């Protein structure tokens, strides 16, 4: 049976609510007809409005409320239809949730999840398209995960809910329509391990969330040009899986990073720094980083095209940066033929790869 990313999230919620009466779901839209893009559909009917409920437009208080519930042994999941909305509750997240366990001398475990959906395209613009994974990864006391595939969404949501620490769950809106077979036996060792999506020896590509889909497309294009790319899906951002990355880079000696957030002071800088420290004399080229420029995300579709790194531009840069022996025009031609745009507009999700992963 194939399910979409949202259907898998729904299933994870359903199973957790069923298995553990201390699990609670709330947030704006949880109980309405939209059901957070369908991900909370039918859950209120099934488990009651005491456990699955709508909140007033008070994200800060609702986030602190989640902390109070967790201190009393509940496992709340607070969610935001856009990660940007969570910024109204950063006081509770950064000063309270992240620190309660530590500053109370470990008398509390804080098992709570804050689910944040990252928007992109169709005019989302400056305040509806930010991914705060780097911001929250900077705060001691928070775990941050950003699964890429539907089944990972399912497993990582369950693991996040069962985790005794606060987890920020980053979920890209453009992954929602990806599909994966449920009989595809995916063994996830633990919440903090990265996953090698595609083994290779010529170049290591490291990304997260929706960026992994783009890396897989690039890897498939380059495979036709006899370049073997290893694609690493981080899944967990804080903590991140240093060993898997180091092992891969030891093999390929070349690294490309793709972030779904801004480049400066972010994920790519942190990972680069560790690679440079560990393998300074070993890598053959400086690390190539892709991500968003230091400007707010524009609403305009025309401006957004240049804001996000396109696969065509990335292919060009990969060739020039590493001096690979392929024709960029040929690579772009392969890309366009292999992954023809199924949508009319480029500011809408066009996954191309829908699994199995």
């Amino acid at each position, binding site marked *: 049976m194939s399910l979409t990313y949202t259907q898998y999230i729904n299933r994870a919620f359903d199973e957790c609510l069923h298995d553990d009466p201390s699990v609670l779901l709330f947030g704006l839209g949880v109980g309405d007809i939209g059901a957070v893009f369908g991900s909370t559909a039918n859950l209120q009917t099934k488990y009651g409005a005491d456990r699955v409920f709508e909140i007033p437009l008070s994200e800060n*208080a*609702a*986030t*602190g409320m989640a902390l109070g519930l967790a201190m*009393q042994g509940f496992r709340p999941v607070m969610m935001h239809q856009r990660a940007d909305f969570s910024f109204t509750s950063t006081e509770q997240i950064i000063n309270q949730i992240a620190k309660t366990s530590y500053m*109370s001398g470990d008398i*509390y475990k804080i098992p709570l999840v804050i689910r944040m959906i990252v928007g992109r395209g169709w005019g989302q613009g400056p305040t509806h398209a930010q991914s705060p994974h780097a911001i929250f990864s900077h705060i001691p006391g928070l775990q941050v995960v950003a699964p890429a595939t539907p089944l990972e969404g399912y497993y990582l949501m369950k693991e996040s809910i069962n985790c005794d620490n606060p987890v920020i769950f980053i979920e890209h809106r453009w992954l929602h329509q990806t599909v994966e077979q449920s009989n595809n036996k995916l063994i996830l060792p633990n919440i903090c391990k990265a996953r090698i999506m595609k083994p290779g020896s010529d170049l290591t590509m490291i990304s997260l969330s929706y960026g992994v889909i783009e890396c897989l497309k690039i890897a498939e294009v380059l495979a036709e040009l006899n370049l073997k790319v290893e694609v690493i899906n981080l899944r967990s951002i804080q903590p991140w899986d240093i060993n898997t990355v180091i092992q891969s880079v030891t093999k390929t000696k070349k690294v490309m990073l793709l972030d779904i957030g801004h480049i400066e002071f972010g994920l790519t800088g942190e990972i680069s720094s560790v690679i440079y420290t560990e393998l300074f004399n070993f890598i053959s080229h400086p690390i190539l980083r892709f991500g968003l420029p230091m400007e707010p995300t524009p609403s305009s579709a025309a401006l957004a095209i240049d804001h996000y790194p396109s696969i065509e531009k990335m292919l060009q840069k990969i060739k020039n940066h590493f001096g690979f022996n392929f024709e960029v025009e040929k690579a772009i031609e392969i890309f366009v033929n292999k992954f023809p745009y199924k949508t009319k507009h480029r500011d809408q999700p066009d996954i191309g790869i829908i699994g199995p992963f």
Partner: protein
Amino acid sequence: MLASLHLIRSVELLISEYYEEQIFRCPVHLSIGQEAIAVGVSLHLTVEDKVVSTHRSHAHYIAKGGDIFRMLSELIGSPRGCCKGRGGSMHIFDNSVGFMASIPIVGSSLPIAIGLALAEKNLNSKNLVVAFIGDAALETGAFYESLNLAALKELPILVVLEDNGYSTFSNKSVRWPASKNVKETIQGMGVTYFHGNGDDVEDIYKNISDIIKRVRSYEPILLHLETFRRYEHCGPNLDDKLGYRSKTEIESYLDRDPIKILELKLVDSGVISKKNLKDLVDQINDYVQDLFTSMKDQNRDYLTKFRMSN
């Protein structure tokens, strides 16, 4: 009641006295003058009832049955403190006595208290949650978000507003418009409001019996009590010389002292003689001094750890 007031006062005067010795190595916000509220409210609470406090947490913690030895250890930063020395005076946590949190970011304690109260309601307990706040909390967004949730979910929460009139040095007159009506604001949000004097511990204790019962039956209530902060906002000293509080105002504090008020009543009505009163106070002070001495002895290893010499 009198013993509780004296115990809290004695601990805080000791902190004030030894602060200059640099043994308590963290900011302290003393409750001297405000103790009647902590005692009058907490006498109604069971161990299972929950309290959430602020940066001014000592009186609330001791009144809730907190462990003074562990609190003083926390104030010196010792691993033997109730939070292993990680929290200090502003972050006292001890869920073993239902003292769930001290949150020094003003207003931010309320959302957490709401969550604690929702948990109690979900668990069908008869426990209530008391959130002590100061007057400046009414200037935060978290306050209004939280009260709305308390009313919406009909939570067993008693918000005790300790109105001492000052946020650090700022009088309410520079923070609240003259036309502000707290009663109407709170009632307009669907939360029951009571107002009273916060100096007389007997009055507070007697007058809130019914309020406590109503909160246990899931009626959120805000209890607004007028009080005063005798010492500086942060630190061990009086700050009368700074001049932000008028001489008349400071003099009025003398007659409003909760300990003085209760002692006068008890002596006048013959419940306690002046001699017995003095003995009681001496005993409490000796007890606190002994606690402090043994706390220092037991933490000697820690106290020598960060000193440059001697």
